[in-house]
């Protein structure tokens, strides 16, 4: 309450990720030296060891690598059943997410959506891609 200064969300390595998320843009890291993409953010390239990586906006398309339907309540913030999944971005990296709508299964194509949050920037989540 004592300070009006707005604290950026995240940590010093992820501030740009969450600033972009506020504008519904999903950023991953891209290595200018070897071309590899990576997520979560680090200050170096996992693939080639380069000490500088760029940010790149992901296309927002992915495939479900694995998933589970959660049927147990772990906290008041979650209302089962819901689907948690590891998705593989078309750019390569994998990330955790939720999938909403339809009857998804492993291997299905999904597209990016955003979940608005009261106390944090929008969260990337996924919906089944039609057709």
């Amino acid at each position: 309450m004592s300070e009006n200064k707005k604290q950026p969300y995240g940590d010093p390595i992820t501030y740009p990720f969450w600033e972009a998320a506020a504008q519904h843009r999903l950023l991953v890291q891209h290595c200018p030296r070897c071309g590899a993409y990576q997520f979560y953010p680090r200050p170096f390239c996992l693939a080639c060891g380069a000490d500088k990586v760029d940010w790149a906006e992901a296309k927002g398309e992915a495939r479900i690598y694995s998933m589970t339907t959660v049927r147990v309540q772990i906290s008041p913030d979650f209302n089962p059943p819901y689907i948690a999944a590891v998705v593989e971005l078309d750019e390569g990296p994998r990330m955790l997410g939720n999938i909403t709508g339809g009857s998804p299964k492993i291997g299905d194509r999904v597209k990016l959506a955003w979940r608005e949050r009261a106390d944090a920037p929008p969260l990337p989540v996924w919906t089944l891609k039609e057709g």
Partner: protein
Amino acid sequence: MNDWVKNPVYIVGVAETPLGEVYDHTEQSMVGVAALEALAEAGMTMKDVDGIMVNYMGEEGSVQVGEYLGIRNPRWADSTDFGGAAFELHVHHAMLAIAEKRCDVVMLAYASRQRSLRGRTMASAARQVNVTSQFESPYGLPFPIGYYAMIAARHMHQYGTTSEQLAEIAVAARKWAQMNPKAWRREPLTIEEVLKSRMVCDPLHTLDCCLVTDGGGVAILTNKEHARNAAKKPIRVIGAGESQTHWHIPQMPDMTVSSAAVSGREAFAMAGIKPSDVDFIEPYDSFTITVLMALEDLGFCKKGEGGAFVQNGRLAPGGSLPAMTMGGGLSYNHPGALGLLLLVEAVRQLRGEAGPRQVPNAKIGVAHGVGGVMSTSGTVVMTNE
């Protein structure tokens, strides 16, 4: 010749702490009781111990437990947290330390009252801003079952593994538990009952999951000279290995391959054995899928064939690969970290003192720990020869 061949290392004492639901002890006093029992088997007292290795029980576990037990000025101390596989990692490290004569007598210790203290939560820790709090916790994946569920789902997708095959593992554990008076669950269990039990995170049912109990154990390792006074047959450690793949599940390179592929390769190479030489195995059965993946990654069957391998009671009493012979984490006890109790049971089997559940003519046994979300592995090969 390698030091561990020239200077062999033995497990000379093992003990369980009080198990199940424990109200008349603290975690440290549980370790105290087990330590005395294990030392008696070793023909030793606390004063002989010059190495102490503890997982959990405080970030400085070896220091806190060492003080409680009165182990002063040890030459070797280690509180490495490697999840449930820590104790197999500790055996690996103790083996090398003893062979190198950095210490003579190492105590491994662990106890938890996670059941009676109701300390278990499935929400992943998110108190500080880190990778977990930003990129995992917001998705509500229950820890650890949701993670293992995704691993099982991927294995099913890739290899056609079925829920019935996973259920066979829980049924095998229960059959062993029925022969162990210390087991928490001993009533008969069928594949159908596993499949009908409540689904927690697809495809894992309640009965695909380990118990939540109190418990722990102590093991004493030493060299040949100090093994002379042991009251029971010393069991020789002939191989050990450890590895890890990931902490956050999307970072696991292949969700169907665990770090057991490395820890097993290392342990079996050190021991100079093949999986077919193994008479029984104590695999970490936090979940049924944990066992199935370990059997594949350790080389007992090919990748993807674990489902068929465990069918028809292969792991059960009378099967060709006895596994979880005390009833495992699925039916005996699972005090948060099972790894030390795997060592205790393997030693008892190799001494021939497992009573009705004794594996006949057991000469080579394996304890295989798994920690985190299928993140870490520790494999230990032991023999009574």
